[in-house]
């Protein structure tokens, strides 16, 4: 009678399998396996993840390069890229207002690259040395939930200017991201500072605060929440509002006087893990297709003249936006203005 031998063999087999699986996973992660996937690109996306993924999926189909993506609000993304300069985690910064990219360029965190596909982009929408390239254009707009407006304010006229938003009837009914930290709201106030002067702008914001229901960290949230009926007005970029409207929400947009605009930009992070792929991505993004994909879903205007204003979009030349908005000035003033705004809490 043989007694039960302890099944040492099964334990050994299990551990071997586990080791192989884990090693394989890590290998896969770092893109060792050739053939189909030629390495991965790592992207910080300030674009909404849905749009970014659409573009990156097409990129994957075309080039075979897979991606890892982390979506962050622009302030966080800038912060991260700066903090990680000693050991950059990402290759590519997708989206975010140009002044954020300027900040990073000044900090030395970006890699200059002039893509051949950037030649038809206007000079005031890209960095002369190639540190960043504009991708889309988007003015600030006041987005109104029509249905909720009717409930609360009946037939009152929609607000046309920023100062209209100070009306006490809007208490708790406005959502706007925090200008002290969010790129979106900063663009709005920076433009106002350029039009009114800094002190008047600060005063304006101070008076506006009580009317704000919340100050989400992300730029698109105010209109998403307004659309869902959580409050009546969301102040965001026009493109976000049009997109939400396309989804079937009752949104009306007004581009007020003195509205600043953002140039959404792209840049390559210096010393990222896969700079080769980042350059390819830059080239890709400046072709027609991604521009079209993005503008049709984001309803912004592409910087490339060859891409038409999308259906359902608004040609901003027909609005009263601040045509002399200078984003380089905005960038240089950023720290001061934001500090002043922080003190308002």
């Amino acid at each position, binding site marked *: 009678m043989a007694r039960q031998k302890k099944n040492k063999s099964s334990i050994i087999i299990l551990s071997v399998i586990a080791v192989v699986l*884990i090693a394989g*996973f890590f290998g896969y*992660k770092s893109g060792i396996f050739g053939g189909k*996937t030629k390495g*991965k690109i*790592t*992207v*910080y996306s300030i674009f*909404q*993840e*849905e749009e970014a*993924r659409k573009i*990156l*999926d097409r990129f*994957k189909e075309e080039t075979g390069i*897979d*991606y*890892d*993506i*982390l*979506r962050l609000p622009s*302030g*966080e993304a800038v*912060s*991260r890229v*700066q*903090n*990680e300069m*000693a*050991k950059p*985690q*990402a290759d590519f910064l997708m989206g975010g207002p140009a002044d954020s990219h300027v900040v990073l360029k000044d900090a030395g965190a970006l890699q200059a690259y002039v893509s051949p596909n950037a030649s038809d982009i206007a000079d005031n929408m890209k960095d002369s040395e190639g540190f960043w390239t504009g991708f889309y254009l988007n003015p600030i707009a006041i987005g109104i939930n029509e249905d909720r407006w009717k409930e609360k304010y009946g037939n009152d006229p929609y607000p046309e200017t920023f100062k209209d938003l100070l009306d006490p009837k809007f208490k708790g009914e406005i959502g706007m991201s925090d200008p002290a*930290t969010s790129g979106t709201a900063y663009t709005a106030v920076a433009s106002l500072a350029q039009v009114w002067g800094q002190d008047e702008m600060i005063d304006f914001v101070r008076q506006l605060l009580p009317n704000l*229901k*919340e*100050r*989400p*960290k*992300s730029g*698109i*949230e105010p209109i*998403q*929440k307004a*659309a*869902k*009926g*959580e*409050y009546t007005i969301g102040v965001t970029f026009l493109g976000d509002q049009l997109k939400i409207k396309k*989804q*079937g929400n009752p949104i009306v947009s007004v581009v007020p006087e003195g509205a600043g605009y953002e140039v959404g930009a792209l840049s390559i992070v210096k010393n990222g893990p896969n700079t080769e792929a980042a350059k390819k991505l830059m080239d890709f993004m400046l072709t027609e297709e991604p521009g079209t994909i993005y503008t049709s879903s984001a309803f912004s205007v592409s910087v490339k003249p060859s891409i038409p204003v999308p259906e359902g979009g608004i040609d901003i030349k027909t609005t009263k936006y601040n045509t002399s908005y200078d984003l380089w000035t905005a960038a240089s003033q950023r720290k001061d203005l934001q500090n002043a705004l922080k003190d308002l*809490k």
Partner: protein
Amino acid sequence: MMKEKKGTGESMKRLFKDPSSLILVLTSFIFLILFVIYPLIVVVFTSGFDNWGTFFSKPRYGKALLNTIVSSSLSALTATVVGFIYAYAINYSNIKGKKFFRFIAFIPLLAPSVMSGLAFLLLFGRGGMISQWLNSNFNIELDLYGLPGLWIVQTISYFPLAYMTITGVLRSISPNLEIAAQNLGARGFKLFRTITLKLALPGVINAFLLVAINCFADFGNPKLIGGNYSLLAVEIYGEIINNEPGLASVMGIILVIPALLVFWLQNKVLSKGSYSTITGKPVSGLKRITTSKKTDTMLFIFNSLISLFIISMFAITILYAFTKNFGRDNTFTLDHIMKVVFSSSSPAVLNSLVLSLISAVLAVAFALVLAYVIIRKPFPGKKALDFTAVLPIALPGTFVGLALIVAFSKGPIVLQGSAALIVIAMLLKQMPVGYRGLTAAFKQVDKSIEEAATNLGANSQKTLSTIVFPMLQKTVVANFVYAFMKNMNTLSTIIFLITPKWVVAAVSIFNYAETGTYYWAAAVAVGLMGATLGTLGIIKLIFRDKVKIFDF
């Protein structure tokens, strides 16, 4: 008078004669010093004087602290009460469906606490399903953001924790005591108040403290639902993002103080010679009959309501995950799942699974080594090692994450952005629990069994592998399962450490929920739960009876 041969010199000599033990001891020291002591010191140094000044001068931060204390206490209170009633119903009454209710209390453990926040938004947010229904049919406008919403969400999130703690205590109260009291004339509420409640009190207090600490450190829910009700964990996160590690460190330290207090309190309560154990083993005795039919009915209704709440949370998540755009377009689709769970681009659920498994294995292995070394081998500094090993239990997850990022993003060792740091963060949170469990189990292993092995010719390694480990297998596996589940769900601890390469499911859910991409948040949540369940299922298959999962 003869002197005994012992003391530091002796024990060091014996240790050096035993190289394998020496290696174990040294490894333990190095690891704990590097990843517990060093980050702590860095945090304290980073905080700096002026930052303390800033903290106390700007009212915004003081408010955050106050809010945190208030909301945590409230949530802990209600969670404990709910947990108690629920546990009482299951252990003391004659209601039907106890198995079902136990199951319901278990399932929230499969999901990160932020999923409660998500489900809450889906149901009760201003655009949520129920709020819309109330709005269109009764013209009621629900605004639960800020304290009310947070209170509700944290109560539901942490009620299972309270329930489990209290149920353990209730089960260890011998029914004979109540029967004896009844025999002497006590009935109904008086019986409950004078006997049951009194005996269960230490456990109830323990539950309250546990939940309070968890609420204190909670990051995901306050961020999602808090609205303008600012809370400490969220402020810390904001400051890290704004590149203000000093200020963040100050707040981190302030966050830790109540946690340490609670930790100390817990130890006092535990060692206060409890008349029933805090986490007791069930005690046999005569059958308990203490509730009237009326009480039974009420308890049943209560438990059913809670269960309904929890089920609806999961239901709404599943609905959002599998429909194109729930509420506007209810067609069934696997699109979302394919896109965010099964895609190779930023595979959050897969990342979570791998990292959680690795970290859980390491946590348990390390806990075993620590327990063995501390209980069986003499060496100097043992008490300090023991304290350091248990310390992370007292530290809120947010603080651990903060300490690690502050310590390892600059300075001599840079680990920022690596998977290793995430694994270590998880390890720091779970290993101490395993260590405590294994130490307790070790103490129950009769020393004479190990002696018998030695007596028959086994050296320490052989004893450890052939005798000690197999005997502790149940505890080891149980701790592994626990560590794995908690790892899958941790958010606050690792939110600072995430990089695009290693986006983890809990963070993904949170991100999507924050930006309003609800269907993707729901899809990842479903994926995460599925992965957890699947892994638990596999473990159950491998170990069968040796592990207690799915025992309802």
